[in-house]
């Protein structure tokens, strides 16, 4: 049954190419719901007791590569996020011509295949392979369907991320030569001197820092987000950068606990700089999509900093925030897209007054904006609270600086909301939500509010697995 996690995306990615044009929309949504069904079934069977291994066979498959796949609570949560967001992305594209395109739908499924692979790989090289597989579909989606002046930005994106991944490959080879195989437990068993561990951990960090992105490796991000089609931006910010956060929890820190002493502080500082830096830039943006691009960078920088504190509460807060950010980012980019569809511009100076013409849209967008600035009773609140608590415990000053994100976040989010929704009416007409847009916004908002009231739904699920990860690293044998 777990094999379906691989088979279904490949099957739909290939079969959608021969579906008649009219059926592509429905076919894509059905396919993504089928994957969601499989993931939910996996979650039902999972009983919170460590790692489920998919193939029992751990023997050497090709030059140290083993066929080890499996999942624990953390992986399952990421799988669920992927499986939920893909149908949402497809539904939110329902009104676009894009959704009719077979290649687009096919690429989304290939992307999903790569993401699923990343989240269930228990073998270093498979992790790398799937990590790279995700890059090609997202690049092609943005290349084919993006804004006219996309080319330079996308080349930069591809080369940037590819070079980062090569650093990770170098680090992987560097551990492998000392380990029996690429199986994660074998890799963890290798003990390094702290200097060697630092260099190897930096290889991983480069790949993750570029993907997340952490200041100063972020220069590809705003342009790529802005020039990609909306679906591409959603996939990038909603799920793809979560791969890097997941990679930090699953691979970077457990593999190199020796390196924690030398990389922990610099990474947290860089991530915190990113939090404030991106938030300040977001305040000054004219392009609405750019505002949320920088907002995404700011939020994710906080998650990265919280993960690096390697504190239990902060980690479980970051899991909540990963889910929250995935949902909210997709919602916010959809809101931008809704405005762009109707007015053909994203320039904040040309917008205004839509709240009167489209009250339903104004309501849902407002709730999303609240969730984005972590108002209590939305899932963002509990996540950011736990993460900031961890950061303050780690270092008071860093915690306070990172805490400004709450204020700055409110400034840029509500500035964008106010300039677009309130003010004098600028358009003769502004149609209210289409049903497909309404469904996506409503699902996201309801999920965010439910998780805000009852975050234990997430934390109870991942905490046992987080505890295991945390313990293996902090026990003497790990250190």
């Amino acid at each position: 049954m777990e094999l379906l996690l691989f088979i279904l995306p490949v099957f739909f990615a290939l079969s959608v190419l021969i579906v008649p044009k009219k059926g592509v929309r429905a076919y894509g949504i059905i396919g993504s719901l089928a994957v969601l069904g499989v993931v939910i079934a996996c979650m039902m069977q999972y009983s919170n007791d460590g790692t489920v291994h998919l193939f029992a066979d751990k023997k050497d498959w090709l030059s140290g590569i083993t066929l080890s796949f499996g999942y624990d609570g953390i992986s399952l949560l990421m799988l669920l996020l992927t499986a939920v967001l893909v149908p949402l992305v497809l539904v939110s594209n329902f009104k676009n011509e894009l959704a009719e395109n077979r290649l687009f739908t096919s690429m989304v499924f290939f992307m999903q295949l790569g993401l699923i692979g990343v989240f269930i790989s228990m073998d270093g090289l498979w992790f790398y392979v799937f990590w790279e597989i995700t890059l090609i579909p997202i690049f092609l989606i943005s290349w084919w369907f993006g804004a006219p002046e996309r080319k330079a930005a996308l080349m930069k994106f591809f080369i940037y991320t590819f070079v980062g991944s090569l650093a990770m490959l170098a680090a992987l080879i560097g551990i492998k030569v000392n380990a029996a195989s690429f199986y994660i437990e074998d890799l963890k068993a290798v003990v390094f001197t702290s200097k060697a561990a630092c260099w190897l951990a930096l290889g991983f960090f480069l790949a993750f820092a570029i993907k997340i992105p952490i200041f100063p490796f972020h220069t590809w991000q705003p342009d790529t987000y802005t020039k990609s089609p909306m679906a591409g931006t959603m996939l990038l910010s909603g799920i793809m950068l979560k791969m890097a956060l997941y990679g930090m929890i699953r691979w970077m820190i457990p593999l190199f606990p020796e390196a924690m002493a030398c990389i922990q502080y610099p990474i947290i500082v860089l991530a915190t700089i990113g939090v404030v830096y991106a938030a300040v830039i977001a305040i000054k943006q004219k392009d609405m999509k750019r505002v949320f691009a920088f907002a995404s960078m700011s939020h994710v920088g906080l998650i990265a900093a919280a993960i690096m504190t390697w504190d239990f509460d902060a980690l479980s807060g970051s899991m909540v925030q990963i889910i929250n950010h995935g949902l909210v980012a997709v919602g916010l980019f959809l809101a931008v897209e809704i405005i762009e569809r109707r007015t053909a511009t994203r320039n904040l100076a040309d917008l205004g007054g839509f709240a009167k013409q489209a009250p339903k849209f104004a309501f849902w967008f407002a709730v999303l904006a609240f969730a984005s600035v972590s108002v209590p009773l939305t899932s963002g609140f509990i996540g950011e609270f736990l993460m900031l608590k961890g950061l303050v415990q780690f270092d008071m000053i860093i915690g306070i600086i990172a805490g400004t994100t709450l204020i700055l976040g409110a400034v840029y989010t509500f500035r964008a909301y106010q300039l677009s929704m309130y003010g004098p009416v600028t358009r003769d007409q502004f149609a209210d939500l289409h049903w497909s847009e309404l469904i996506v916004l409503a699902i996201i908002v309801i999920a965010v509010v439910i998780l805000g009231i009852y975050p234990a739904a997430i934390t109870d699920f991942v905490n046992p697995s987080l505890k295991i990860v945390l313990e293996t690293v902090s026990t003497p044998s790990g250190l």
Partner: protein
Amino acid sequence: MDALLIVFASGLISLFAAFAKKPWLVVSSAMAGLLAAIIVIIVQLQTGKAFFDFLTYEGLSFDQFALLFSLAICVLSLLIIGIGYERFKENPTHTGEYIGLLMFSATGAMIMTAYTDMFMFFLGLEILSIPIYVMAGSNKADVRSSEASLKYFLTGSFATGIFLFGLAWVYGATGTFKLQEIQMKIEEMDTLSPILMIGVLLIMASFIFKIGAAPFHFWSPDVYDGAPPAVTGFMASVVKIAAFYAFLKMFALCFGQGELFLFWKGALVVMIIITLFVGNLSALRQVRFKRLLAYSSITHVGYTLLLFVSQVDFFFSSQYLWFYMFAYGFSIVGIIAVAIAVNDSEDRIDALRGLGKRNPFLAIVGIVSLLSLAGIPPTSGFFAKYILFSAAWKSAAWLVIIALINSGISIYYYLKVIVAIASPADQEQEKIKLSPLTIAVLVIALAGMLGFSFVLPLL
């Protein structure tokens, strides 16, 4: 030995079949011969017994690795004849010569994999090279093709001369041509004789020339660019396989011990670094497709040479080499098929634009081949490269890091071609029709690029 004879005989047969002036007859007899050779090799690999046991010659020994590399040579020659058929049949009077020469060249390549004696190696090298000098100039109406032929001939024969010169020094130092005896003689030496060292360096220079690594690479862009695409594909895949394996056999087995290894290793490391950077940096600004491929193949030579300094056991290093060359050969077949089908007289990269509309299948093959050349998972090119790098890491980690940096540089120009294929054309262009033979070959190449690394462990 059986496969060698079969390939040679079918080369002769296709020469005679040319009298009928029917290209399909020539091509099918050549392909039938190669298929038979492949089957014979596989049977011999399985059973360990040759069909004609009595046909043995001490200068040639078809051991397991010689057979594996001969298999790669036969498979890739078969694929290249398959994609080149469209071009070969344009000129029915000369099809026989081209195919015949290609088959003889493949024979030479097989001799180069199986030699145990410097003399046989030299024969194999000449049998391999001379047909290619002719084939490179086979497009007589094109000045560039003639230039390629002349250039390749002049520089190639010069390199052969250097090889013979080096061989003379080695003979002077050891007094024998046989690989095993040379090896024993070198082991017996207390101190390395300078005569031997000069000889080894000269032989290495000629090899470096043959595989087209810097600083002896200057012929390769012009020759790759000027030669007809199928010949370029043949040079990039089959010739490289033979030259690399011969190189590995001679240097890992014969000159690969102790001080002598350290002596040529230093020179080779410098050459690897130059090769990687020269190949990559020159490729960045190319506008012509086959010229880009030439520089990309120079870079791949650089990656492959990592194996020579990796100090891995010959048993493993030849396996890795086999895998790498096979994966690389499949990608070359795919990309050459694109070049043949697009058939732009100027050979510009921009001419690839709109390929997705003109023929989606060809576009997919092209993109996958480029991804495989760039070493992006899940293509075989990635796994092959990974295995090479991890083999070299232990002895030369910093060299692997340089190679990885170069992979990062190379992604730029591969990406340039990929996006050209994925972009729409400026004006409407006619659709490209592929013959069933080409499609069959491309399906094999595609399966090789995507599935080879997954099937390999099962073998």
